[in-house]
């Protein structure tokens, strides 16, 4: 039995490398975050790589001396902002990272921002639209990027999935990279038996 390279364990944030757009890097984004007083946002649609980018930034943030507290606001889990506001990272070098910031109400977003400012803690968020913080990067996956990701997942010698399969999955998923990869999971599974 061979592993399916499009399974969650291979494509979840941290398991797959984030492919930075030309001219961008983890170091450059951290520098931009530092320049904006450690306040920033990553914007992009569903399945565009925001969480993967956060995972890719984690080592560089640690290297920059930030103590990071990360929270993922999944739609399926019960979550209350008090969970993180009661356990803030250290003042002066702490960074609160919230993945899915737009899921907080306007009131909790305002309170989170105010708490971070009051305690001298940075705030880095991901969202589907502008949340009023300095934008570090807007994730905009393309078909070319999807093909690049698929090639990395498959390895150089694996021919089970062709370029046409990636395009079909990409079109069917309406440009949602994560959904396209899950469609390719089914294709791979049916062909590899």
């Amino acid at each position, binding site marked *: *039995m061979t592993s399916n390279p499009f399974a969650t*364990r291979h494509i979840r944030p941290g398991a797959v490398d984030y492919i930075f757009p030309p001219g961008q890097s983890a170091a450059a984004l951290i520098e931009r975050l530092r320049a904006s007083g450690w306040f920033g946002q990553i914007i992009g649609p569903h399945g565009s790589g925001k969480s993967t980018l956060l995972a890719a930034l984690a080592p560089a943030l640690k290297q920059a001396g930030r103590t990071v507290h990360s929270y993922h606001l999944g739609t399926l889990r019960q979550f209350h902002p008090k969970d993180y506001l009661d356990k803030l990272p250290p003042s002066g070098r702490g960074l609160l990272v919230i993945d899915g910031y737009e899921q907080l109400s306007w009131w909790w977003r305002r309170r989170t921002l105010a708490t971070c400012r009051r305690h001298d803690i940075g705030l880095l968020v991901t969202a589907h639209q502008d949340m009023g913080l300095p934008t570090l990067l807007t994730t905009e996956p393309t078909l070319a990027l999807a093909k690049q990701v698929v090639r990395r997942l498959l390895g150089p010698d694996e021919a089970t999935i062709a370029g046409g399969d990636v395009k079909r999955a990409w079109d069917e998923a309406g440009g949602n990279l994560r959904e396209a990869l899950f469609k390719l999971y089914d294709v791979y599974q*049916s062909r590899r038996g």
Partner: protein
Amino acid sequence: MIEPLLSLCLAGPNRNFAAGDELVCEYQIDAVEPADIQAVELSVLWYTEGKGEEDMGVHFFERRLPADAEDGDLRPMRRLRSKLPNSPLSYRGAIVSVFWCVRLRLFLRRGREFVVEEPFTLGSVPAVLPAIAEPS
């Protein structure tokens, strides 16, 4: 720095086991100084793979520290035996698959870690795969 060499193998040619069978494996570590080794872990485990949340279970686990070995050297060949359980059986499905493997993890001082795995199957459950319409 040269990477340590981790050798892990199942005894005998068989990679397909039945519930209750005895799995025998051997491992050995080379190309690293004994003093650089912090711990060695061997596990026999299963994990799920699919499009959703993952699950796993450890059937057998052994962690050895230098203090557990003769002369503090964890590198020499070690043989382990484990009776395999009745479930979960290896399975390849449309939504989820179940895999079994033996996993060897080497922890070096200063936080470096190396892993090797040796897969095997438990049971013989037929695969149930998705029917995808291939483009004409």
